[in-house]
Structures are given as C-alpha cells and as structure tokens.
C-alpha cells in the first residue's frame, strides 16, 4: 500500500519531469529561433546585390526581374519580408513595381494557399501579407474568413487586408457590414481601415448615410468628415431628427464643417436644441468659422443652463474679433447672474493673456491690440460710472 509520503515523492518526480520537459521545449524553441535568425541572415547576405538592384531601379520602365534560379519556400518568405518592409514606406511607382515583383515571385500565390491553412495564425499572417501586396485575388478568400473565423481581434486584421486588396465598392461595403455586426462602437476604426483602400471611399460613405442601421450611418458620417461630398444637404437635414442621439450629434458636427449649412434658421434651431451636445458643437463652430453675424444668438446662448454651451458661446464671442469681444464685455454689465458674469470675466482675461505670447501672425497681433484698447477704455468708463453712482 502506498503511503502519503510515496505519493508526494511521485508527485515531486512528476513535477520535476514536467519542468525538465518544459525547459527542453523552451530550449528547442530557442534553437529553432536562432536557426531561423541565421537562415535569414545568410539569405539576406546572399540576396544583398539583388536587393540593391530592386531599390536602384524602381522608377525605370518595365518590371523588376525576379532573382535567377529557383527560390526555396524559406527564401521566398525572407525576400517577402524585405519587400513588405519597403512597401510599407513607399507609394507611387516604386510601390507599384514592388507589388508587380511580389506577383512575379509567386508570393501572392503562396499566401493565397496559406489562406486555407489549418492553422489560424497562418491564415491571419497570409491575409496580412496579401493585404500588403494589394492582391485583388485574395478578396473572396478574406471575406470568407471574416464570415467564418472565430470572432476575435483578427477580424480587424482581415478587414484591413481586405481594404487594401479590394477594387470594388461592394466588397468594402460587405466588409463594413461584417465589422459593424461583429462589434459596436468601432466606427472610427472602420473609417481608419477604409482609409487604406485604393479606391475612392467617398461614394461608399454617402450610401452608408442612407442606410437604416444607425451604426452604418455613423460610419458614413465619420467618413464624410474627411471626404467632403457635394449635395448632401437634404440627407443630412433629415438625419438631424434621427432617433439615435449619436447620429444627431455627428450630423451636426458634419454640418458645422461647412459654412453653407449654418444658416440663421439652422443656427438658432441648433443653439436651442434639446441635446446640449448639439448646442455646444454649434456654439464652438461659430467662433472657429468666424461667423460674426451670429453674435446676438451667441449672446443669448451664454445663458444656457448647460455649462459647456455657455462656455463655448463665450469662447466663440472672444474669437469673433473686436465685435464679439465687445459683446462679451457687455455681458459683465448686463447680466445679473453672478456665475455667468464670473465665467465671462474668466474668458475675457484668458483672451487678453494670449497677447503676452509673441504671435507670428501680424493680423492676430493687431486684433489683440484692438481688443486690449477696447477693454482698457471700457473698464475706465465702467469705473467712472461706478464712482459717479457712489457719489
């Protein structure tokens, strides 16, 4: 019969065996890694002259020639790594020449086969490589992987690869729909992925804005901030009343980028909108766009109960040359609410302090001097009035 001590000894033997086995595995992995490093070094040395050749003739007519002789699979991988490091850095004819070379070397074909590998990370690696090589043939395979593979972060690797490979809008649209279905609130990331595409994504964003799914609409709206498209007024007007608050805010942000949409009707509507975020965005945009005609509306908005709306309105008034600054100073006289007066005073002082730093722009310096002069005259007059009232 086995005593507890014998069992403990067996356990210790077992644990020691496992530890030794683990160490052996680590040792083998390390050796493999060193061997791979050495193989890579030898291969890079062997093809050093060839790499010089491909870098020296990137802008000449005709395709770059693949190296003479038959390449082993491992050599192909190492050459591909070097080519991808160049592809990441260049655009224009040099990139195109390298892309053609990747195809001529059979690298695209090799990774297309790896897309069907049993190993998940081989598939992910193949998709990444195909993306870097802008391989159009890989589009159906990558879409299939996006539909089939486990839902994890590799979806984004597939999506980026697809964005680089796709030549048709419909493929990008399918990718966007798969990503939106996969994870919510990643619209900025989707737009960033789409920016890697070779095709013009403007029309895609326009069509996404008309979708029923709010997440797709958000992708479209974010995309349109960097892809200005004409004739969007009517669609955006409708979306201002969307049931989704985030959509409403994004639409107004988009409208605020174009002075044509900021009509008097729209500005007064937005400044009194039930969503404080919308009022705040519009108040800020008026100052940034220098729309002095809306000074009276901003003066009204400084009384808004929401802090950000009031603050942005005051900041915008300070930005709107001397007229806006004058309106801001008048708040100190006219307003009864001490909180608003205090906030206005802070904004005025902050604006005047900007002049302490030397500005490169002469026009800015002149405007600042005008504001300072106005403020000095105004405060003297106010003080005199106060003294007169005291007497």
């Amino acid at each position: 019969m086995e005593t507890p001590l014998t069992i403990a000894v067996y356990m210790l033997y077992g644990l020691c065996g496992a530890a030794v086995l683990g160490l052996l595995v680590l040792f083998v992995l390390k050796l493999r890694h060193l061997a791979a490093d050495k193989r890579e070094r030898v291969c890079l040395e062997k093809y050093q002259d060839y790499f010089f050749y491909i870098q020296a003739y990137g802008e000449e007519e005709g395709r770059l020639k693949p190296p003479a002789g038959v390449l082993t699979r491992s050599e192909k991988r190492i050459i591909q790594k070097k080519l991808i490091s160049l592809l990441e850095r260049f655009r224009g004819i040099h990139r195109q020449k390298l892309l053609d070379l990747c195809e001529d070397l059979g690298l695209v074909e090799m990774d297309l086969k790896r897309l069907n590998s049993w190993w998940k990370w081989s598939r992910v690696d193949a998709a990444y490589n195909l993306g870097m090589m802008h391989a159009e043939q890989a589009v159906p395979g990558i879409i299939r992987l996006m539909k089939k593979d486990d839902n994890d972060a590799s979806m984004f690797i597939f999506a980026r690869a697809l964005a680089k490979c796709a030549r048709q809008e419909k493929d990008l649209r399918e990718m966007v729909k798969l990503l939106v279905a996969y994870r919510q609130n990643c619209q900025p990331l989707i737009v960033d992925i789409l920016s890697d595409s070779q095709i013009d994504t403007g029309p895609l964003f326009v069509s996404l804005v008309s979708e029923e799914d709010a997440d797709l609409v958000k992708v479209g709206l974010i995309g349109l901030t960097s892809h200005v498209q004409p004739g969007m007024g009517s669609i955006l007007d409708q979306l201002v009343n969307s049931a989704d608050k985030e959509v409403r805010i994004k639409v107004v942000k988009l409208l605020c980028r174009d002075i044509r949409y900021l009509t008097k009707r729209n500005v007064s509507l937005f400044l009194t909108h039930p969503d404080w975020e919308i009022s705040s965005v519009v108040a800020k945009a008026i100052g940034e766009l220098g729309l002095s005609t809306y000074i009276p509306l901003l003066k009204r908005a400084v009384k808004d109960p929401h802090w950000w709306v009031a603050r942005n309105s005051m900041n915008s008034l300070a930005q709107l040359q001397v007229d806006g600054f004058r309106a801001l100073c008048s708040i100190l006289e006219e307003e009864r609410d001490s909180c608003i007066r205090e906030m206005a005073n802070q904004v005025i002082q902050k604006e005047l302090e900007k002049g302490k730093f030397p500005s490169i722009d002469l026009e800015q310096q002149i405007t600042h001097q005008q504001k300072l002069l106005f403020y000095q005259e105004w405060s003297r007059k106010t003080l005199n009035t106060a003294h007169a009232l005291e007497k």
Partner: protein
Amino acid sequence: MNSLVPAFHQFLQASRSEHNSCGIILAACKQLSPTSVSYIEEALQQKSTGLHMQISYDKNTRLLAVYLEGQNRSETHFFSLQVKDVLQERGLLAGSLLIASFSESKQATSYVLQRMIQEVMELAGYGEIKLFFHRLDGREETAGSILLVNHDETVNEFLQIFLQQKGYHVTIAQDGMDGVQKYQELFPDLVITDLNLPIMDGYQLMERIKQQQTGPASKIVVLTDKKLEEDVKKSFALGASDYITKPFSPVELAARVKRLIS
C-alpha cells in the same frame, strides 16, 4: 592599350546599330585559362537566352569584360548578378565588378572604357557591384551633398542607393547627435531628417543647424511619419524648407530635393 578596348570596338562593329543602347560589365578576376573563359561564356549564354553579348579577358589586368547589346542600366545590372554568380561558383572572382550602360553605344568611347578599367582596378573589396557614372559633358562633380539623418535602416538604405543613382553624395547619420557632428564636418547642401530620432530629436537638430550656419544656409527637408499640423508648423518655424510624410513617393522626394539644391 588594354586588349578589352579593341575587343569592345569589334563588338560594336558586329552590333546592329550604334544607336542601340549597350551595357558593359567589368569584373576583376583571378588568372583565367582559355578553358575558364569558355566555361564562363557558355554559362552566361545559357542564362541569357536571346541576348547578344561578347566576352573578352585581358591577361595583364586580369579583367573580364562582358559587352551586352540593347541593354539599359537596370538590365545590365541584373545580368551582372549572374556574372558574379558564375564567377563565384568556380572561385574565379578576385575583386569587385563595375557596370555601366549607355543609351547609345557610340557614347561608349575608348576614353570612357579606359576610365572604367582604371576605376575597377582601383576598387577595393570583394564581390561588390559598383555603378559607373559618366557625364556626356565630361564634368565629374556630384549633383550636391546630402546628409540623411534617420533611424530607419530600410529608409536609409533605400535613399542612399536612390539618391546616389541621381548623382548626389549621400552621408548617413543614425541619430540626432551623429547628425550634428556630421553636419559640422560636411556642411552639406541639404539635410533630410526625421523628427523621431534617438539622443536628440529632429527639432533639436534643426535648432543646432540653425545656430551653426555661418555661410550659405543648408536646406532642410523633414521626412517623417508625424502628420499633425503642429509638427508641420513647428518644423517650418525652425527653418525646414519642405515637409514630407511617410509613406512617401521617392520620385516626388527627388523632385523636391532637386528644386531645393538647384
């Protein structure tokens, strides 16, 4: 006279037209027997199907010359890789290789060939492939000097090859401090710098360059992956003449460099 020159004229006479482009490869070899020369010729003929070429060997200088008809510089360069392979396989290579190409074969005069022979014999090293640049007007000076300050080895390697091809003299510095030191030594016509640099960043480098400028000002081009307006503004305020973001077009970069240096 070196026997390679008459051999080349013989090759030209046999060529179809003097308006054809042609390439020349010179390789410093060991002492070659006629059998070795025939072996090399045979091996190269196999690798170059349909290519009109001629091989000659000069015993005195131990130089092997390969003349190629209708080949531009890139084709000649690519063929030189195979010449090198063949020579190395048999252990016949003794030094480096020099390649040149001429858009019209009549540009390859005896004088140019003599200069090539001289240059390949002066080359140190083993197995290196050097490019021979010749100007039709006979001037020897470079298009300008460029200091490249970048921590990215891939970009450094590429730009050195690319800009040297355009006739510029390129010096590389790996970090900001190295950049300042090399700037003080060389006072180049143009500095291409990244903003993200070890030890001393691109802004500090530009400030130091600004302080040290006594004679004609070196132009500065910023080549970086920073895309923020703030970085662009600050770079121009510190004296940058141009700002290029990665990924970049080498053709565009070359055009900007040419404009700034000229």
